[in-house]
């Protein structure tokens, strides 16, 4: 019994020692890696610090004799890594000639071929970074190599590829972008705002793809197509938008179609938009109110005025505010509502007060 107790105590002591040493080792590892990272960051700051004025001169277009550019392109390999990091960060913020000059810095350090190799990497982060780097450098000829990444198994890579194609502006990617919104193999598709941004950055040749997408079986794709039509805008799509408004059932897409018609439609569309302003789905109704305001015709006033008395507060307020934007005719109607007791009184008063406050803030009163 006594022997067993001694053995147990010895075992416990060994376990405790192991635990203590493991804790010390882990703490040392954490502190060591943190210190290492801080040291590397400090060293990188020092390395880039000396070259910062040259980078700012290139990025601001103040490098007329290209002295700063040649300073950045002829750095040692160790400095090149740090310079590339800083240049990539700056590249996403400027456009025009400075962006082309900064891309030249990356190209001179072999970043193009590094990124092209990275598109086939096994690591998703490497594929995403490679695509993004090529996009930042506006490497047009790499577009066809980035397009397959729109079907990548990692959504991060898909987003990076789409954003890279946006920067490159390669309209050949339009069909692949639409497919990426509703993929067959992946549960998550390309987020709609990324797809919209991408399709809006391409040239007019994407119109056919966008028009086809308005009749896609998946609502997410139809929503993207309708948003692109209104955002670009694509006036050629007006007949298709009118046709789709008669059959579309998805409220989000319907709202985007209504908004699009507000951008590309005309006086003949006012009756349709007025009808959608009464739609039971508030998002659709609000989009119609905005569209009526956007068309901005005198007859919009007649379409919007009854909505000021709508039982939905957001809709009635929005309609009242829209009337303030439609000139003296709209304001006269609001004054009449504000002076007569009824459901339109409150929203009309709110809109008139809001306009007065905005004018006062701008010092126009």
């Amino acid at each position, binding site marked *: 019994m006594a022997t067993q107790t001694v053995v147990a105590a010895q075992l416990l002591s060994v376990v405790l020692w192991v635990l203590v040493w493991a804790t010390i080792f882990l703490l040392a590892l954490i502190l060591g890696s943190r210190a290492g990272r801080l040291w590397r960051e400090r060293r990188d700051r020092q390395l880039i610090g000396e070259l910062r004025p040259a980078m700012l001169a290139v990025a601001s277009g*103040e490098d007329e004799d290209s002295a700063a550019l040649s300073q950045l392109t002829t750095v040692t390999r160790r400095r090149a890594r740090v310079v590339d990091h800083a240049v990539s960060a700056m590249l996403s913020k400027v456009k025009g000639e*400075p962006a082309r000059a900064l891309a030249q810095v990356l190209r001179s350090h072999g970043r193009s071929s590094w990124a092209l190799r990275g598109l086939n990497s096994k690591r998703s982060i490497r594929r995403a970074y490679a695509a993004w780097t090529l996009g930042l450098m506006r490497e047009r000829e790499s577009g066809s190599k980035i397009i397959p990444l729109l079907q990548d198994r990692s959504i991060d890579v898909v987003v990076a590829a789409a954003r890279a194609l946006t920067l490159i502006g390669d309209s050949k990617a339009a069909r692949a972008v639409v497919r990426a919104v509703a993929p067959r193999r992946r549960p998550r598709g390309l987020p709609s705002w990324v797809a919209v941004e991408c399709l809006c950055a391409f040239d007019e040749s994407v119109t056919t793809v966008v028009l086809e997408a308005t009749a896609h079986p998946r609502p997410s794709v139809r929503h993207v197509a309708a948003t692109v039509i209104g955002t670009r805008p694509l006036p050629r799509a007006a007949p298709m938008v009118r046709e789709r408004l008669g059959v579309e059932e998805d409220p989000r897409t319907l709202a985007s179609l209504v908004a699009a018609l507000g951008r590309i439609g005309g006086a003949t569309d006012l009756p349709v938009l007025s009808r959608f302003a009464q739609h039971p789905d508030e998002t659709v109704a609000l989009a119609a109110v905005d569209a009526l305001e956007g068309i901005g015709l005198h007859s919009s006033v007649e379409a919007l005025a009854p909505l000021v008395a709508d039982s939905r507060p957001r809709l009635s307020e929005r309609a009242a505010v829209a009337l303030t934007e439609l000139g003296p005719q709209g304001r006269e109607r609001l004054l009449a509502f504000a002076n007569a007791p009824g459901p339109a009184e409150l929203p009309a008063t709110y809109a008139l007060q809001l306009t007065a406050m905005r004018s006062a803030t*701008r010092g126009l009163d």
Partner: protein
Amino acid sequence: MTPAQPSILVADDDPDIRELVVFKLEQAGFDVHSVADGNAALEVLTDSTPDLVVLDVMMPGLSGLDVLRQIRAEQRLETVKVLLLTARARDTDVDDGYTTGADDYVTKPFSPRELLHRVNTLLGRGR
């Protein structure tokens, strides 16, 4: 006697953009002061009246639009021109900027050369 250079306040939380804008404007001969957020911008504006403020919209603390509202509400600052420099590029964002009282609106990514032209125009300076 040389006339004093126009003074410009730059408020942007992105150090890259801030440094770049300051560099470009200083090269063009302006007297430039920069801050990293909206509160700091207002602090500077309590003691001084720059000729122009270049404001980012999305900043920690007070947003660029909040700062703009305060500028427009202050009679002492009524002559200050405000240029919004922001990544918010939707039509409604631009409308909001102008409605709040901005004199000009530039979206990011931006061309430093174009920014300088806009600044010169706002300050009535020839090229």
